[in-house]
Structures are given as C-alpha cells and as structure tokens.
C-alpha cells in the first residue's frame, strides 16, 4: 500500500506492505538505523519511537496504523547539537554498549516532556519497558534526573 508518514518532521511517501513493522520500515525503507531491535516482541524497548507524541515499541506497530501519523526517532531528537538529555547520558555514564540507548533516550525524553517530577520512582517507571543489561539502570536514572534539573 501507499502511505505517508511524517518522519522527524518531514513527510515521506512510501510503498510498503501494510503489516510491515514500523521498525522495519524505519530501518530498511528509510535507513534510519538508530532505532534498534532487541526482541521483536515488545519486551525490550530498543525499538521505541514516538508516534504522535506517544512512546511506542515500533516492533509492535503495523505501518498501516502509522499512516498519516508523525513519527519521531532518535535521529529526530537532535539536529546539530546534542540535547540536554543526550549530553547527560554522555556525561553521567548512561550509555555503555549503547544498544539500548536510542530507545532509552526516546523514553527518557518522553518522560521529560510529560513534565512529571523526576523522582527516582517516577523515572524508573517511565523506563521500565526499556531493558538495559549493561548499566544496572542507576546511571540512566541519574542521566534523566540530571537533564530534568538542567532543562527546568
């Protein structure tokens, strides 16, 4: 089917299979490889993107359901300079192997945008759908809290 997506601010028209995973459309059709696959079943959050501003796992979204919607991927969060959240991840040790990092940052940005107070518990709940096997989460939580302090 033919459909339009607003990807990171620009409208793209695509010819795709309607049940193709949004994840594959991003990675294969649009060569936006920042979004990762860790499980393909909604468990790990490595494929997280924003769909009309909401955090979703792109491996569970059939692309036909994103037709006409706006999608923001890790590539769309920053242009030339790093965002405060990305800077915090670099400085506070929030990224180790980095494979979970794009999804974590998308989830973390979603949390910051919600305006909720960045308590330890609230931040952990916001990233509970993003598995990280390297960091033990402490430095990821700190990175998000640090960015929250910097941006508010």
């Amino acid at each position: 089917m033919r459909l339009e997506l607003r990807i990171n601010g620009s409208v793209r028209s695509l010819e795709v299979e309607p049940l193709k995973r949004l994840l594959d459309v991003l990675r294969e059709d649009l060569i936006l490889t920042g979004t990762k696959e860790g499980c393909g079943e909604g468990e790990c959050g490595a494929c997280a993107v924003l769909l009309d501003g909401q955090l979703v796992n792109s491996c569970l979204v059939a692309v036909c359901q994103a037709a006409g919607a706006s999608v923001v991927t890790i590539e769309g969060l920053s242009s030339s300079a790093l965002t405060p959240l990305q800077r915090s991840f670099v400085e506070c040790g929030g990224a180790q192997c980095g494979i979970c990092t794009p999804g974590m940052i998308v989830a973390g940005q979603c949390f910051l945008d919600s305006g909720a107070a960045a308590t330890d518990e609230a931040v952990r709940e916001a990233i509970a759908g993003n598995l990280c096997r390297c960091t033990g989460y402490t430095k990821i939580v700190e990175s998000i809290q640090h960015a929250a302090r910097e941006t508010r």
Partner: protein
Amino acid sequence: MFDKPPTMKHADNSKSTVGHSPPRKDGPDKVTGRARYLDDLAFPGQLWGRTVRSQVPHGRIRSIEFDPRFDWSGIVRVTAADIPGDNIVQLIEDDQPMLAHDMVKHREEPIALLACADRERLEEALLHVDVKIDPLPPVLDLLLSTHVFKSYRIEAGDIKPAFADSSLRVVEGIYRVGHQEQMYIEPNAICAVPREDFGVTIYGSMQCPFYIHRGLQRLLKINDSQIAVIQVVTGGGFGGKEDYPTVLAGHAALLARKAGKPVKMIYKREEDVAATTKRHPAVLRYRTAVKPDGEFVACEIDVVMDGGAYVTLSPVVASRGVLHASGAYRWPHARIDCRVVQTHTPPNGAFRGFGVPQTLFGCEAHVEKIALELGLDPLLVRRKNALVVGDVMPTGQRLTESVSALPVLEAVAARSGYAAKREAAMEAARLPAGSARARKRRGIGLSLALHGAGFTGSGEAHLKSRAGLELTASGARVLSASTDIGQGTITVFSQLAAEALGVPLSMIEVAVNDTSRVPDSGPTVASRTTMVVGGTIARAAEAMARVLQGYVAQTHAVPAGEVCCVGGIFAARGRSLAPFESIARRYLDERGPLVCIEQYELPPGVQWDDAAYRGSAYPCYAWAATAVELEVDLDTYEIKLLDLVTASEFGKAIHPVLAEGQIEGGTVQALGYALLEEHIYVDGRLLNTRMQNYIIPTALDVPPMTTLILENPYSRGPHGAKGLGELPMDGPAPAVAAAVLSAIGKLIPDLPISPERVMKALHAA
C-alpha cells in the same frame, strides 16, 4: 591509603587524565543513534544466512535431505562436506564440529546452513530440509554424567586430622546454581564478505577478533593474509561473545565463500538464547571444620560443573571456579576438587565471572551456614577469617600487597547499617508465633568476594599479548585488539596513552579493531583489559614519549633529560618549545612512521605450576563486599530489594564513572542471577528462550545502590589498577541469600531464590 576518589558524578570534563572521568569517546555516536552496529551496516549484494539444527539432543545423523520438490534456486546450501579445512570450532580442544556430520550431541547442534537474499523464502526453505537422526539416550543431569572433560584438585595442609578433631565443629552443605543467559540486548551478529584472494573479511559483534582470525584459517584452509576480522560496535557481550562468534563467523564464511556474496547472520532472540553459550550450572558440596569461635580450620570442597556437549572454555571456567572456591578466607587445611562434565545440552561458556559466581555462591552461602550453626554473627565469622597481607592461599600463593578483604567488608558493614538492621530482623523473628505479625519480614545480609585479575595461572605467560600505539600527524593512535563492548576500553586506553604522552585526550584516537592491522592483545576477557593490555599500552606510550623527547632534544638543542610534554606542548626548563602535533609531523616527515609495540610481561615472582596446580594463580586480586537489605512478603513470598551497598577495591579507578558503571551493571546482572533468572529444560530442550519468559531485571526491580570505591594500588598495574569487570558479578547473589536468611530464618541453598523456593523453604516440614 583507602581514600575514596572525588565524586565524579558530573566531573569537570577538562580533566581527562587518569583518575578523572572525561565523557566516553563513543558517547556522542551512541546517544544520537549514529553508532553503527552490524545490523545497521549495508553490504552490497548481501544474502541472509540461517542454520538447520539437530532438534535431537543426542543421536547419529542418518541423512540430510533437501526436498527435491522445493525450488532451491537462489538459495545457497552448505553442509559439512563443503568445509575445505578442518571441521572444528577452534578453542581448547578440537572436539566441536563447525557442522555436525556424524553425531549430534545437543539439540541445537548446527547441521546445515542456508543463505538467500529474500528472508521470507529463506524461512520457507528451512522447513524443507529434512534431517534424519537415530536418537541415542541423552545424558542431561550433570550428576549422572560419567564423561569428565577436566578435573582439578588443590590441596593444602592435611584435612584429615581436622575432621577427626572432636573439639571442632563440622558443617556441611550442598548448593546448586543453574544456567544464566548473558542476554546482551544485541544478539550475535556477523557478516562474512568473500574476497578475490579466496579469503574472507569478517565484520561482527564480538569480544575476541583473533579467536575468529585463527579459527577461520583452519576451517577455510587459508593463510594469515587472507583473512581480516573487524569488530564493529558491539551491543554487549559479558562473555557471550567470547567464543560463540567463531561459530557464527565460520558459518557465515562457509556460506559467503560458496555464494560468492556477503552473508549476514543475525540470530533471532530465541535462537540466540537456545543455541549460544551460558553460565555453567554447578552443584557444590562444602564440608568444613571450624572452631567454636568461628575460626576456619579445614575445608573439603567438591564442585561439579555442567560443561554441555563440548569442551569449549570449560577447563578454564572450572579452573577459575576452583581457584576461588575457598573464597577470601584463610584455610590452614584445604582439599578442593572440581570437575566439569559433559551433558547433551548446548555447550556452556564464558559469562562475566567465569566460574566464580558459582563457587563464591557456594562458599559465601556456606559461611552463612557456619555462622548459623555456631550461633555467630556472619560478619564476625568473615572478619575473623578474611585474608590479609602475608596470608597463604590454598595454592601456596603468599599475598604480598593490595589485599583489601577487611577494608571492603568494614566499609560495607558501616555504610549499610548492618549491625542495627540485623538486630531488628532478629527481634522481629523472635515475636511469638500467633501474635499479630506483619505480612512482610525484613532482613540484611552481606558477602565478601575476591576476583583474580588477568588470565589464570600460566595463561598470560603463554599469551604474550601485544599492544601499542603509532604516531599520527595529529597525535597518536592506539593499536590493540582489545574490544570495547560497552565497558569503555577505548576511553580508558586513550586516557592511559594521553597521560603517558602528556597530551590532551582529544589527541588520542583508537585504531579500528581489524586483525590485519592491530597486534594480538589477547582476548577481551578475564578482567585483564585495563591491567594487562592497558598497562602494555601505557608502557608503549612511555617508550614513544622517550623517542620524541630525544628527538626534541636534538632538534631544539636541549638536554634530553629535561624535555617533557605537558598539555600537548613540549617544553624544557620551563620554556615551551613546540606543540606535540608539529613535532609529530616533523618526525614523520624526517624519520618515517613511529610505531611502538610492547609485549606484556608477567611481574617477576609470579609463578605457576600447571601440573601440581600450585603457585600464584593470579598476580593480584580485586576485592568486594556487598550488603543487601530486603523484604520478604509472607503472602506471595516475593522479595523486594530495599537497599544495596557495595565496596570494591580494584587498585585504582582510571575512570571512576566507567568503573561505577561496571560495578552497578555487574551487580544488577548478579541480582538477576540471585532472584529471577532461571532456564527450564525439558528433555534437553530449553523452554524459555524469549525475553518475555527469561526474566531479567527492569529499572523497577533494582534498589537504590551505593557504590563505594576504595583504592589500594597494585605496584605492577598501570597507575595501580587491577581488574574490575567481573568482580561485581560475584558477591550479590550470596548477599541476597544471607539477607533472606536474616529475614525468614531459612538458608535457601539454590539459585535463583525465587518466590517458589522461598515458599518451599518456609513450608518445609
């Protein structure tokens, strides 16, 4: 001596030198999605590869048939008959075939390979390969196996009189641990690209490029110049990408050679979990003789580990395991046996800790049991027996420096409020039955761990690993085969080189990890990277600094001994002479390339006798203590972690933020091992192969953590550094067991300490 380094939370980034925490070099790429992992790379004309597996745990292959009614055009097929060289996965023994052709010894054993450009057709094709196998009875229980891959015995003193001495108390226990899956978030991934010289270039997610380099030479019968192995950004390894990538690279290379096209193989999660290596399960028996006041006199330890179907790394896993089985304690008399046996399950292999999380769980849980039976506080028992400088280990090694068992123990006991919390837990347990008890019970427990740095025994001496750096027009480039799999190797090596050369961090780059271009620094395992390879790089950088100082002395007519480089500027007698880059360019123009490579030398006095199994198994040890506070729900038997404190001493933290990251990450993997992670096999088949049913901790499962770093420099490590990577994996599981004991009065001897096991313990007659 044990002062804590300054808090590095949001460190001053201008400070890039050793002991500070500059932003990691690969950070910006990783936080923007620009870092390219294997699946992100495009290879023109590339096919996808898949594996046909046994599905039978043990048997003899009768036939492999490719359905003649299926359209095989455009599909490349490979079986053992296509292998030009030796059909083996090269490691310690040559017992594992790259593709089975005769016997199958586990259910996931690879038998044939397929490649196709179209993934849908490839999946379809897999269903049309018919492998007929005559099944044989499998051995699936490690205690029933009679096939011993390797066994070890360590003996010290004479245990017999101690066990006969009626003034001593004999305490016995059996402890069991199961498989643990590394569960890196990026599965194993390799792409093989065929070359015109009939060789192959391998790109992939891996820890040990030279393992693949050597393995493929034998498999494909090609020479050293026909192969290059290039590590790309790797999404976690934890040991799981130590030896297995050799299998995957072998498979991809066989397909690529036959197809004449690049072949990418990326395991699906289920396949990765089912087929690749895991932590060895083990059964550990402890029998100890102790004085009534808690002083240890003798131990008799027997460890059996399950190696799976093939030898792979089992001998070295078992060796490290047995060497740590008596823990961080003095035992005047000891007899420690360990054997690793075959079962018809996928081979087990390396996983952070490498045998030690198993044996230290046994040892530390047993210390709890000793304290329980003697009616003593386990902290006092540990304090009484902890190793100090001058003590002799069961292998005969005398500890001469950098021993911190007591300091880490005391730091953790103090910070966690151990004494008061333990008293409160005992108070709650004394409430009479029937009184209105709370539905939750709190407890606190701790553990003490040590971890030998570098390869075991004569390993480092055999390896002769090399690393160094080359001068570039803008600074210097580190040359090493050590991989950065997230732990920060690139940044730490750059810091060490920058420090020795006297230049800012930005002037150091790290060469692409390509076996055709970098020296063999040995594998990235065994907590050896900073101490062994980092130390070698630091020495190479010092050598380069001396050459350049001599050169500057000549060109600027100053005495060589007075030239130094600070902040990237050469100076003598307080006078600036020239920036490092301009000297580098002039040197390269006038004299040509400058490459300084050093080889690691074992420190003098570190001797090991493999035959007698005596001597210094490791040049030095890192030390850690962990305290865990938790709450057990008496309705659901769930355990909620409330607080966790660790203190670690690993010589020197070159980069404190990265070091904390290693400690926190390893600790959480260990908490998963302690509480959640369990594999369920039925008839040799693994049932939980998905992230949905192999449960690792989420951010909500992790308690607040306090990470204390003590420093006690090791005279032979770079700036005093020892190894850190594996240490945090060792202590948390027994600390959890101790805390559960403190909460409910039962010692649960098996991992994981699941709610189901807590229930059983509480309701056992």
